[in-house]
């Protein structure tokens, strides 16, 4: 099964089995890692904000206008910031690494 690595806010890395077709937010949430995801994945809150590593970023389609607009409400947004509910997990994303952005 495809896997992904998630670094929590204490710097601890967790290796998760990724369900194909789920969003990265859902995989993180179902693993009981602390991700607020207040809007449940509707791109309406920015509380599923993650940083992705450079390799991962290259594999992803760029953030669309909606995602960028919601990222405006995020905190400490960087060039490698994404909303994890907008990343659909697939075989091609096997091995990606993401880090949870600060809570606010």
């Amino acid at each position, binding site marked *: 099964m495809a896997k992904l690595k998630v670094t929590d806010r204490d710097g601890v890395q967790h290796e998760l089995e990724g369900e194909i077709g789920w969003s990265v937010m859902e995989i993180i949430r179902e693993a009981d890692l602390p991700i607020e995801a*207040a809007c449940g994945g*509707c791109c*309406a*809150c920015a509380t599923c904000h993650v940083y992705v590593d450079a390799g991962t970023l290259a594999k992803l389609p760029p953030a669309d206008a909606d995602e960028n607009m919601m990222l405006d409400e995020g905190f400490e947004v960087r060039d490698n910031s994404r909303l994890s509910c907008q990343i659909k997990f697939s075989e091609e994303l096997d091995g990606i690494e993401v880090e949870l952005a600060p809570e606010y």
Partner: protein
Amino acid sequence: MTGSPSTQEPIQTDMVIIGAGPIGLFAVFEAGLLGLKCHLVDNLDKIGGQCAELYPEKPIFDIPAVPRCTGQELIDRLLEQAKPFEPVFHLDQQASALQRLEDGKWRLETTAGTVFETPNVVIAAGAGSFVPRRLPLPGAEDFEGKSLYYAVRRMEDFRGRHLLIAGGGDSALDWLLNLEPLTASIGILHRRDEFRAAPDSVQRMRELVESGRARLLLGQVAGLEGTGGQLEAVRISTPDGEIRHECDALLALFGLKMELGPIAEWGLNIERNLIHVDTETFETNQPGLFAIGDIITYPGKLKLILSGFHEAALMCQKAFKNAHPDQRLVFRYTTSSSDLHKKLGVA
């Protein structure tokens, strides 16, 4: 239990609902069918909870018999349905203090000093009160209310100040336009040079910037400088490195989040911010104190609007008994009961 001392006469009513989200609104209808009058309290300045605040224009597909409607349309329809029962809304205030009176009723007070006395309090609080998101910066609390603000309570607080507004949405731009004439200097800080606000506001902001009356800074808040709660400068991270912007007030507008708030202090059986209830009556561990909707948990609970509707209907059965211990309740359909037709105003 906090809350400012009240000067008003208590409002006497059959039921007070905390939270004017979809579930609180449907509870008004179900209570109304049983002849119970409701008052509702919400921290937001509008009716509709998550549907109105988080997704007014997004479609919902799983409301029984409504194949498709937007969040706002759902709220508008629920309001129309509840209208015959004349619910009274108390918006922009948080239910803060709850106390049991000697006669067994509840005394509920809000942060605006509204006081209710009622046999039934219903917590339909979703994931808690909508409150502004705060800057997760160490030491930010020291500045709060003195030189760091998350909302505008009084415009006068900003007169003669050197103000920086952080945010790129409608509220950030509206406040820039409204506060500009009052302030000594004003700036707006946004992550990128694109604003998700009404085009007219964006246009007017750009005019202010061009005429030199406002400054536009692109970047994000990275730190606060100052002493004794008085801000002296905001450190801003920009694509070209960190800069320092001198100002004596910061208005940070990063949207709203939901926070359980005072409900946590009411002696309820709460686990992971969810209230345990009896699924026969939707009463909490305290008689006459009910909870329905997203805020509750029980085996099999689904956080869906339709589940909340069902919970509201069952809850009202017990609430009726609390309000009228000496009366019997007969089960009737809205289709055929002339009594219900009278209540609905369709007789």
